[in-house]
């Protein structure tokens, strides 16, 4: 490299970034050897298929059954685009986000809050149906939160409830997920907030069971499940009703609601900071069904 000093102030010992300038040799195009010392065989080797350019296709093994034909087919990736995926969120990462003040534990923690804190990245176009809580870091976890996820492992549920928190698993269809992770671009569209769809047949058993703290499950059975889990993992279940944050911990979304405090059918006017609500009976009946 040719070092040309563009530094106007001379007498400095250190080299400056400005001092280095590229030259024309760097931008030469690369071609096969043509002439003089790049010539003779021109980088093609000696005789055979290499020099003559008649090599067989990629994967050919000289007549032996090639690898890509010898191995039998198996449907590993069959139906991959119909499989729901859930982005994992460990309790260790959640605790880290709370400690750094990116997630507010005094408000209900939603998928929107997690994405706003840049704690998880959800890609609805890659069949992501939300976030799943993983129990890595369950021994470190020490925060009382009201969290709503799409899937949760048993250990994660135990860790959250041990600290006096509330955990719920709920279902969001792909359109609702898209709106949930990017609420502001959705509001700018001027469309009314849609109602959240109910889970499909295969997911109904998951969201109606109390062990998974499903949002469609019976509240009494959930309380029994909480006691059973406390006995299984060996901790004393703290009484939430005596808590000062009980009102926040008991906050839950309606089955058809996408955002806290905003019901389906409303239109948000971001520019004028207003909310428009419909009054027609048919519309109200549709959105509250």
């Amino acid at each position, binding site marked *: 490299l040719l070092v040309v000093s563009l530094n106007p102030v001379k007498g400095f010992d250190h080299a400056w970034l400005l001092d280095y300038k590229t030259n024309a040799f760097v931008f030469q195009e690369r071609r096969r050897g043509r002439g003089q010392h790049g010539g003779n065989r021109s980088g093609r080797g000696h005789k055979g298929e290499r020099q003559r350019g008649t090599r067989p296709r990629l994967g050919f093994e000289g007549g032996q059954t090639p690898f890509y034909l010898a191995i039998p087919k198996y449907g590993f990736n069959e139906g991959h685009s119909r499989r729901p995926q859930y982005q994992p969120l460990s309790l260790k990462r959640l605790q880290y986000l709370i*400690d750094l003040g990116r997630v507010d534990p005094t408000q209900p923690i939603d998928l929107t809050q997690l*994405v706003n804190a840049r704690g998880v990245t959800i890609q609805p176009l890659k069949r992501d149906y939300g976030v799943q809580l993983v129990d890595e870091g369950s021994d470190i976890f020490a925060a009382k939160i009201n969290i709503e996820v799409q899937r949760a492992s048993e250990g994660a549920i135990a860790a959250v409830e041990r600290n006096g928190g509330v955990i719920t698993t709920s279902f969001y269809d792909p359109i609702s997920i898209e709106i949930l992770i990017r609420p502001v671009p959705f509001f700018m569209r001027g469309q009314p907030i849609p109602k959240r769809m109910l889970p499909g047949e295969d997911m109904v058993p998951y969201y109606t069971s109390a062990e998974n703290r499903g949002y469609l499950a019976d509240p009494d059975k959930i309380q029994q499940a909480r006691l059973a889990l406390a006995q299984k993992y060996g901790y004393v279940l703290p009484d939430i009703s005596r808590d000062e944050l009980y009102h926040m911990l008991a906050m839950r979304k309606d089955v058809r609601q996408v955002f806290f405090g905003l019901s389906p059918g409303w239109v948000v006017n971001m520019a004028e900071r*207003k*909310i428009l609500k*419909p009054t027609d009976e048919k*519309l109200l009946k549709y959105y509250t069904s």
Partner: protein
Amino acid sequence: EIYSSINQYTPNHKCFRKLVHLHKNKHINRPYWIYFSSPQQQKPALIESTEEFVFVERLIPPSRIPDPPKHAGPAPSGWTPPAETPPPLPYMIRRSRMHNIPVYTDLTHGNRKMTLVRKVEGDIWALEKDVKQFLQELTGKDMPTQVNEVTMTLRIKGHFDQELKSWLSSKGF
């Protein structure tokens, strides 16, 4: 013009007049259900309110990284805040944008492990000497290091990120 041409096809009824009026201002985005709700003089098609806008404000993502709350000592996740006053050493290592210690691992060519210390200010050679001494006590070997004075970074052969992070946080950086 537009008004008269539409009047040819639609009867001059009250509800269709409102439809025509809305069609005149096509550039404004209105929700589709306005066209289907029958306009009555007593009941408006929509109600405007500003009370629930608080919930919308909660959904807006913050544009700046928030400052971490005060912790007395290490937090439950293992994060330690920097010391109140910087330690009295000839060098200083700033925290990253996300308030973490800027020590990173690097892997090139599939097998070349390196540790990188970034955001160094002051006498980087003194830091290199201290790091070499610390690693000598830790491993018993002299680890090769590379100082880059232009970018003010320090590269060390091998993965030592956890050890260096705890050592730097104990110093108070």
